[in-house]
């Protein structure tokens, strides 16, 4: 029965869908359907030429029955109450109507569902269409790209072809050039050889000619012959001499080889020593471990004991073999070292495994062991806490007591007095010290002023001296102008007396040499041309600073030391040096002289 409906419904649906296609609006279609249905129902009553009239009730009934039967509603058979067909048997008719209504409703709902589905489908179709167009565009684009790439590839292939041809030609050229070079080289070498032969021939001829000419000039002319440098006489060239030469050569070679062998032996011995030591240490490391590890497992300890015995034996044998032939010893040594290394590795692995075992054990025993100790510890800590509490309490009490007492005014005043007294005492002491220092200072100042006065007097005397000397000089000089010029120009020759700036330069040199940070000897003159003596100089004259501390003195010493090799004019220089150091205090006078 269901199938029936569905086919009908689908047919109807087809129609509706076709309509909807035309109208393009589902809501309007609905309206249309309803407006189509209702007037039909109304018309069945209002219009005379209706389906059923009073005359053909029976026919109608039968027709409807047939229709119902065709619809599959056989159970409800509408019957007329009277043969004339004026009345209807209500129950079946109503049933039939009900059934029809039901059918109608069902079809309507299916129609609605189908319409919804239809809508969905149409939207998806639209989506598909748009995506389709997009994909089409993409396709076109990619096709275009592809063609572009194809083009490029073609071009590149063309290029490759040209390049390959180029390469080929280049290769050919290289080969050609190489062959040319080779031929040239052979030609050159050939030519060179020919030339060399020619040159050799020429040389031969030249020497022959020279010999033939009996070159008279070729001669040695010695006043008297010399002895040999080693004091021996010359030897004849004999077979014995050649043999001795050979012997000597081999001797020297042998000694060289021996020396090198010795050094190699030493090196070897050292390396062996290192190896030996390494081995010993290995044994040392291994043996106590085995003894300590004996407790762990019986098998292990036995094995290790055996091992260590073996090792000791090995060590002994290798020590013995060291003195044996080199190769043998080396082999043994390396072998034993290798064995021991293997053992050591095994041992370390074993230790590792043991450690992991022990750790596991510890982990398992962790809860067992500390319980008792834990208890003890707790007890002890509690005791400690109790003690601490008591201690704190006592402290608090004491503090309280102290506070109470300090509130007492009288005691506070007493304490204060004590403090002030003490401070006064200290101040007094300081004052005394200060007084003493002051007195010292006064004394020193007095000394200083006295010294200054003395210095002034000395300076004055010196000035007078200088004036007189200048005067003398001037008087002496005037008639001998020629000599003076001569001395100034010849002042630089090696053996003459040097003039003042040169000496200063050399003193600067020495200074520089001492300081060791110098870069050149042509440094500008030191600035000591001031008319007023500087404080260090003053101090020096006052003998406040010992002479040895002045840098000039040490310079002088160095200069003397350095200049000992200088020839002839040593004394002159020494004289100048003396003068120079004297003048360094008041360098103005001499300076002026040199400038004038």
């Amino acid at each position, binding site marked *: 029965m269901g199938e029936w409906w569905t086919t009908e419904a689908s047919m109807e649906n087809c129609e509706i869908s076709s309509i909807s296609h035309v109208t393009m609006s589902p809501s309007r279609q609905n309206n249309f359907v309803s407006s189509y249905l209702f007037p039909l129902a109304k018309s069945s009553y209002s219009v005379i030429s209706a389906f059923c009239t009073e005359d053909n009730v029976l026919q109608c009934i039968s027709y409807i029955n047939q229709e119902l039967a065709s619809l599959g509603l056989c159970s409800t058979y509408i019957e007329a109450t009277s043969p004339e067909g004026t009345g209807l048997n209500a129950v079946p008719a109503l049933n039939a109507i009900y059934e029809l209504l039901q059918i109608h409703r069902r079809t309507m709902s299916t129609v609605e569902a189908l319409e919804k589905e239809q809508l969905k489908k149409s939207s998806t179709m639209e989506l598909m269409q748009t995506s389709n167009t997009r994909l089409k565009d993409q396709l076109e684009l990619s096709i275009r790209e592809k063609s572009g790439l194809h083009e490029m590839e073609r071009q590149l292939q063309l290029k490759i072809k040209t390049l390959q041809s180029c390469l080929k030609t280049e290769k050919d050229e290289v080969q050609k050039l190489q062959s040319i070079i080779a031929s040239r080289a052979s030609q050159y070498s050939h030519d060179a050889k020919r030339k060399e032969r020619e040159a050799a021939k020429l040389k031969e001829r030249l020497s022959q000619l020279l010999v033939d000419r009996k*070159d008279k000039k070729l001669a*040695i002319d010695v006043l008297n012959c010399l002895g040999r440098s080693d004091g021996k006489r010359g030897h004849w*060239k004999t077979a014995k001499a050649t043999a001795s030469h050979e012997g000597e*050569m081999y001797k020297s070679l042998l000694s060289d080889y021996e020396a090198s062998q010795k050094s190699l032996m030493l090196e070897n011995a050292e390396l062996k020593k290192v190896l030996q030591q390494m081995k010993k240490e290995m044994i040392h490391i291994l043996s106590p471990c085995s003894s300590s590890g004996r407790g762990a497992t019986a098998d292990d300890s036995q094995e290790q004991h055996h091992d260590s015995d073996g090792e000791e034996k090995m060590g002994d044998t290798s020590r013995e073999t060291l003195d044996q032939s080199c190769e043998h010893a080396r082999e043994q040594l390396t072998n034993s070292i290798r064995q021991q290394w293997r053992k050591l590795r095994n041992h370390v692995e074993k230790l590792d495994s043991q450690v992991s075992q022990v750790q596991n054990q510890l982990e398992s025993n962790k809860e067992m062991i500390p319980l008792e100790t834990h208890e003890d510890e707790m007890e002890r800590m509690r005791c400690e806490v109790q003690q601490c509490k008591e201690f704190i309490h006592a402290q608090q009490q004491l503090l309280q007591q102290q506070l109470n007492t300090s509130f007492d005014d009288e005691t506070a005043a007493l304490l204060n007095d004590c403090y002030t007294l003490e401070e006064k005492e200290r101040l007094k002491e300081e004052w005394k010290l200060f007084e003493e220092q002051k007195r010292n200072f006064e004394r020193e100042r007095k000394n200083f002023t006295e010294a200054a006065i003395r210095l002034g007097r000395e300076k004055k005397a010196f000035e007078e001296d200088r004036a007189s000397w200048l005067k003398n000089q001037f008087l002496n000089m005037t008639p001998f102008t020629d000599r003076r010029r001569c001395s100034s120009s010849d002042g630089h020759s090696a053996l003459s007396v040097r003039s003042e700036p040169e000496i200063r330069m050399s003193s600067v040199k020495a200074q520089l040499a001492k300081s060791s940070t110098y870069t050149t000897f042509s440094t500008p003159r030191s600035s000591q041309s001031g008319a007023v003596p500087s404080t260090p100089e003053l101090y020096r004259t006052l003998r406040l600073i010992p002479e040895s501390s002045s840098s000039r003195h040490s310079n002088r010493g160095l200069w003397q030391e350095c200049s000992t090799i200088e020839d002839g004019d040593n004394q002159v220089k020494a004289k100048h040096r003396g003068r120079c150091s004297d003048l360094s205090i008041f360098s103005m006078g001499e300076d002026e002289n040199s400038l004038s």
Partner: protein
Amino acid sequence: MNFSEVFKQSNQLCKVSPDGKYLATCVQYRLVVRDVSTLQIMHLYTCLDQISHMEWSSDSLFILCAMYKRGLVQVWSLEQPDWHCKIDEGSIGLVSSRWSPDGRHILNTTEFHLRITVWSLCTKAVSYIKYPKACQKGIDFSRDGSYMALAERRDCKDFVSIFVCDDWHLLRHFETETQDLAGLEWSPNGCVLAVWDSCLEYKVLLYSLDGRLLSTYSAYEWSLGVKSVSWSPSSQFLAIGSYDEKVRIINHITWKKIAQFEHPATVESTKTVYKEVERRPAVGTDEMSLHNITTGSTLFNTQSKYEICSLPVQIPVVKPDPDRANPKIGVSVLAFSSDNHYLATKNDNMASAVWVWNMQKMSLEAVLEQTSAVRCFQWDPRHPRLALCTGNTKLYLWSPGGCVAVQVPTEGNFLGPKLNYIVLRYRKGAELQ
């Protein structure tokens, strides 16, 4: 450091005697011998012509003066000033003259390397050695003076002859596996002879005293090869400088390379880089005195000092002309310090830098960057101290403790008694300007 006054000299002929007691200088055709300690003239000899070469004998008793143009050699004695000796090579010509190690024989090389004439001062005897090869270093005496190795060329093949210097007996004569032998050098212990090929091929051959080939070393092929070779004083290392700007150190046991020192333009790992900085001295008005102007030396000279640079340091590189022969590239000078601890090198395309390598750590110890090209350098014969000059009036000294630049007080000459050997070599360099 002290400096003497300037001594005249010509042809840069100025040498200290091997025992360090005397100093000989040549002035035109005169030979002046001074005592080193007093600098006073001891002897003055007059030769027949301008002296072109001068050499002390090993015992410091004789001086050889060669006059190549005249083909003459004159020998003077210090002990007997009136003793004289004159050797005339005649029309064959003379290009080189040298003492034998015993100081009683003179080896003269004739023009075109036709032969070497050995003149004995003891017996007046003369012997000839034919076919000597004209090359970078064709003759070398062992350090103890007992053997002489000589490169020879016969029938377009290289040979080495080993002579006993005692009586010039030919001990060994063997062909070497070289294309074109460039030089040979004895190891300081006198048992190994290093022979190297010309720059066209990297090849170093090591021969035993009895002529056996001990080893052959070649670092690379198809490129310019060996440029310089030097033994360490202990005979333990052989340093080979080559055109690829590297130094290779070869050991004396396996004769294989144990270290390679490169000379990069950017120094990144070393202890210190010293850079010379020049500046003119500040001249005050009070210094414009007559004396300074007349002496003139100090006023126009620049001062120098070293600065320590932070790494990395870029060292100026001159690109050599590839079309010219003997391109200015590669390690051309190698020198071990007397105590074997240091090796100083110079790379020709970084002419202003000297590299000092530590032979114990086999690493770069210091780099000295000068303002101008380094002319020569030399180690102190006693201490690990390097002196170098760049053709100006300054002397530069390096030691493990630091670096210093010293201004030579007067133009040219000076002499320090302790440093005489070095300083004299420097004086030469300084006057090359």
